[in-house]
């Protein structure tokens, strides 16, 4: 997982790893929660590397969403692979997440004041 600061001081691009399964989720959740708690309330979660995700992996996305909402921030999901998108759609979570395919557009959106 990688955090890259964006043009806006409270915005950040988070590149998520290949696997988001039950064994990795506590670490991932802690890192993202820390990022949000320390003031970064606008996140682009880049999913293009994610090949495997299970429901506990999805719960990391959900916890990030709820936390940023509490802090008047925003979350964007970027470029999920077909498999990951299928799971997001199967669980109907595409109704609550903004999903972008284009990285520049996602970054431009999150950096809007």
């Amino acid at each position, binding site marked *: 997982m990688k955090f890259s600061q964006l043009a806006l001081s409270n915005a950040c691009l988070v590149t998520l790893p290949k696997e988001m399964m*039950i064994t990795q*989720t506590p670490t991932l*959740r802690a890192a993202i*929660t820390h990022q949000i708690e320390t003031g970064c309330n606008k996140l682009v979660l880049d999913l293009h590397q994610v090949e*495997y995700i*299970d*429901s*506990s992996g*999805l*719960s*990391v*996305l*959900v*916890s*990030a*969403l*709820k*936390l940023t909402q509490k802090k008047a921030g925003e979350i964007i999901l970027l470029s999920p692979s077909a*498999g990951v998108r299928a799971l997001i759609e*199967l*669980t*109907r*979570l595409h*109704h*609550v997440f903004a999903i972008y395919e284009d990285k520049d557009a996602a970054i431009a959106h999150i950096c809007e004041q």
Partner: protein
Amino acid sequence: MLETLFQQQTQNLTILVVEDTQSERFFIVGLLTSMGLNVICCDSAEQAIEQYPKQAIDIVISDWRMPGLTGPELCLHLKNLTSPPYIILLTANNLAEHIVTGIESGADDFIAKPFIPSVLKVRILAAARIVNLQSRLSDKNLKLNDALNKEHAYLEQVKDDLKSAAQLQGSHLPSSGQLVNRWSLATRFKPAQELAGDIFQYINIDQENIGFYLLDVTGHGIAASMQSFTLAQQLSCSSCHWESLDPALIVNQLNRDFEDPENTGRFATLILGIANTLTGEVKLTLAGHPQPILLDKHGASLMTLDAGLPLGIDSQYRYKNNAFSLKSHQQLMLYSDGLYECRHPKFGEFSLERLVNTCDQAHQLTPEALLHHLCHSMELWQQKKPQDDISMMIISAPELTILSSLSSSCDDADELSFNSLKNELVQSDLEAAEVDILDNHELSVALENSIRVSYEITANKEDVDITPQKTLNINDASQGIYE
């Protein structure tokens, strides 16, 4: 300065001097005593070996050449004991070969004779440092071991607790059997760890209506199972409005009460329905849950019902009902995502598509045999390392007289002989195995075997539920082929 340090380091230490020459022995013992040390002496290595276990000795100073056992031989002996002392050898010369022999035999230090008393003193100081360090380390080790034993006992206790909690959880789940008005239920439950985040149940609402649900809390283990227990508690008959016959209402309420105090983003997917056992009318609400599979005499298909968000995402979300009818002999299969998300190291995820295909090819099996077949296929796919909780539930409608005009005249299918069915089944499964599983010969053989065995149970026992004993034997047989 050196004096205080020496006294601090050497207090409580006991030194054994081994020297055959009386004058030398007196000299060394005199020196050491004047330094304030506890000293014992022996005039031979043999006597030292006899003395050593009788007292707590920290440092041994031994002459090299003695009648009987030599200094290095004494070293060898003492260093083989469980608590060996620190050993200083006295040598008459400083030859390299002496040093090599000495170190090989286990000596820690050497002093060449004749020696200056102050040199002996600092060598003893160095020895004392090491002896003290060792004793501190062994004290700590003892404490660590003690703590480890306590932790171990605690862990065992927790494991026992988990095991009994798991038994409790398992005992709360419904087992296969007959429901009201000749409807029937078949279930399977395979937790990934002791405790599962899956839970399912059916409820007799009144003479006519049955309620049922299957829910899956994200993750597995203790926290997930506590959450699913809480949800199941809320869905238990007395505290839930089943009599409203409105699944959406029940799910709305459940969603409003969903708690995630640690903000872990935990959520639950749920499928909840109510069926009228006389008319076959079903109302279903889906909350982020995979679509149920509809099975009948013609095959299996994934339903396409309207589905809402999982529980715990948006407390104000309004869920919808889906209404449809189960016709005579149709079956509704509910399952958790662990069933199709399990991964094979080479072939990847089992996938929903493969699940539906597998059900389609095996749709002629009785519900019980189908669940057995699916479980076995999953076990093979996961290489017997459970990844997520798996739960399955098949609700079967009997001959429904009220809707009999609607059910198609497919009774002819019953006339097909067992052999032709069996051939067809094995053939289609073989093809499927080749296409789906590519070159994994073992897996395809095992899957083929599993479906055949499952089918034979059905044929031999003529749609009577298989007994647990039977299941076990057949499982062993088919696994044997795989291995």
